């Protein structure tokens, strides 16, 4: 007897108990949907993030000081400890090409040609190399000490008239001061340029730490006790007592090349200095804080590890769901075999071999399993799609897992159908025909 014939008969039996069959497959649907949804999200997240690490970024090390026990992504629990002197010293070290500070600055709004656009964050002060040449769509990097800025397309496009290179933009800082910058470049993406910023697209303006950050610290220190006293939330350097010296929240160290060896050398070199008594940072680090210094890839790896852990967790739950689902199918198949004892007797009486009966019931279980798997996959992809749409990352279909899900459906069907089908095949035709 051909598989297609089995399938046709099995389908008929399943259809005659629609509700029962639907409820039976629910366990499989939920289990598979959970896995597919999560895997879709995971794969999309991974593609969205890993796809963002450009080769030019591979030689950058991102460092910040935090309690070593702090869990979380880049900058979690970061304290501003890096002084300009430290940065200068680090850039002189062996194996270090450049080192600069990183500091997000709070703002109130951006003003372009009299048009005001409220904006609470998105002003980033860093060194010129932070704007990697490969990320520039047009224009150039800003220069240290100049009132220049690089903006991303989200900023350029958020006013009635597009902002272009050479235009002037006014930034209203948190403290109420206003400062005007000349746009010298526009990046090619609205996503963050480094793991510090996060990867979700949002409007961002990049400016040199000098003058913008240093100036702000000065004004904050000067205005202490005045109307701007509450302003120093983000520019925490103002209140730390290291005087007017600006302290940076994070440091970016550029190695000589993206080579693993060069990156490691730059890391050791930079960390060696920052942790030595020569640095200003070491004073502030004390016993509680430690400097973390990692490449984008390494930082993403941590995220990946968290994802992997979550994934094992979900897969565990899904496995339980699948086991429950299999038991459900096995149970229904047993009921079905008993209900259809007489039919089995008829089939055997007219020449059905044991393996025909076995195949028939096994097919039925497998069809149930596969239906569950298909519905689960569809549901999972739908949820995954909704998820990627919600967190705004590109959707990546985990084709491998879809195939795997169907295979699991078949496997669940076979495993749960085996015993009932064997019972059916073993039925004695005479007893079965006598069965009322």
């Amino acid at each position, binding site marked *: *007897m051909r598989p297609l014939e089995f399938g046709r008969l099995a389908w008929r039996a399943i259809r005659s108990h629609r509700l029962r069959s639907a409820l039976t497959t629910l366990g499989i649907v939920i289990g598979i949907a959970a896995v597919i949804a999560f895997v879709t999200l995971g794969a999309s997240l991974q593609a969205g993030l890993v796809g963002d690490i450009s080769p030019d970024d591979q030689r950058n090390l991102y460092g910040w000081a935090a309690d070593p026990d702090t869990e979380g992504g880049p900058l979690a629990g970061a304290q501003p400890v890096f002084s300009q002197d430290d940065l200068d010293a680090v850039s002189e070290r062996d194996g270090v090409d450049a080192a600069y500070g990183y500091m997000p600055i709070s703002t109130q709004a951006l003003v372009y040609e009299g048009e005001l656009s409220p904006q609470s964050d998105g002003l980033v002060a860093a060194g010129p190399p932070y704007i990697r040449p490969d990320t520039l769509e047009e224009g150039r990097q800003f220069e240290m000490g100049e009132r220049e800025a690089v903006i991303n397309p989200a900023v350029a496009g958020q006013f009635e008239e597009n902002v272009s290179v050479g235009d002037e933009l006014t930034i209203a800082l948190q403290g109420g001061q206003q400062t005007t910058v000349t746009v010298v470049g526009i990046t090619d993406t609205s996503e963050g340029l480094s793991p510090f910023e996060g990867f979700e697209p949002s409007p961002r303006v990049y400016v040199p730490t000098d003058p913008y950050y240093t100036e702000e610290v000065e004004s904050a220190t000067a205005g202490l006790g005045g109307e701007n006293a509450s302003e120093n939330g983000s520019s925490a350097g103002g209140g730390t007592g290291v005087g007017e010296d600006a302290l940076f929240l994070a440091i970016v160290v550029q190695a000589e090349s993206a080579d693993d060896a060069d990156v490691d050398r730059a890391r050791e070199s930079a960390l060696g200095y920052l942790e030595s008594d020569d640095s200003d940072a070491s004073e502030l680090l004390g016993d509680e804080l430690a400097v973390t210094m990692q490449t984008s890839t390494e930082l993403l790896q941590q995220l990946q590890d968290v994802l992997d852990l979550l994934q094992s967790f979900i897969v565990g739950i899904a496995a339980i769901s699948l086991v429950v689902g299999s038991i459900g199918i096995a149970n229904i198949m047993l009921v079905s075999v008993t209900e259809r004892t007489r039919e089995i007797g008829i*089939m055997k009486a007219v*020449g*059905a*071999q044991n393996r025909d009966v076995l195949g028939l019931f096994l097919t039925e279980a497998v069809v149930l399993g596969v239906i569950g798997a298909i519905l689960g996959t569809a549901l999972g992809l739908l949820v995954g799609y909704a998820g990627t749409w919600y967190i705004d990352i590109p959707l990546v279909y985990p084709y491998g897992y879809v195939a795997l899900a169907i295979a699991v459906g078949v496997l669940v069907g076979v495993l749960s159908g085996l015993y009932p089908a064997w019972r059916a095949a073993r039925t004695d035709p*005479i007893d079965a*025909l006598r069965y009322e």
Partner: protein
Amino acid sequence: MATGTAVSLQNVRKTYQLGEPVHALDGVTLEIPRGTYTAIMGPSGSGKSTLMNLVGCLDTPTDGTVVVGGEDVTTLDDRERTTLRGTTVGFVFQTFNLMPRLSALENVALPQLFQGVGRSTRRDRARELLERVGLGDRTDHMPNELSGGQRQRVALARALVNDPTIVLADEPSGNLDTDTEADVLDLFDEFYDAGTTMLVVTHERHVAERAERIVHLLDGRIERVEELDDAGRDSDVAQGQRDGVDGTGAASGADR
């Protein structure tokens, strides 16, 4: 007409152990030549169905040998017995035993499915048989949409689908009205005329009288074998003769 033995029982016993043993068949020896028409009669519980199940390869004897279509059923394994009942014998059950979820056509086609016959061939063959039993316009009806007599005819068509050399019918007319019964029995006559060995269990004399001989069972033994005198049944003349004898000729003749 073919010669030789279609069914041969040698000292067959079937014993059920229920506290004390029940001898459903107690030493039955019977030869049924090919192409003959045999009726089996006997009171309830005399072992008629047990005998049919043995000949139909559904069951195996406790003792003795059962030879069907030249094969000793007692030496065959389950798979070979299944093949034999799928190809050599066609069984018409008293209770029809149709598959409730399959249409008349699919029911008739079912035995061929297990013989690996292709779908379209199967359906053509089933349609042809249903037409032959007068149900050409009921092919897509479900069993519960058919009358008792129609169901019996579907069961009959199914029994014949694999061209069996032996047709077994256990009280085929047990719950049919006179007209429908005559229809079914006329069909039996047709198959008999075509050379099929017929073995029919019945309680009713007029049904049994269509056969060449009647085997009377009593308490699991053959009480006597009654040879009916229209021995030359294979000729058309004999056909008409018999119709006159059994008393149902008028009813069945009107149908022809």
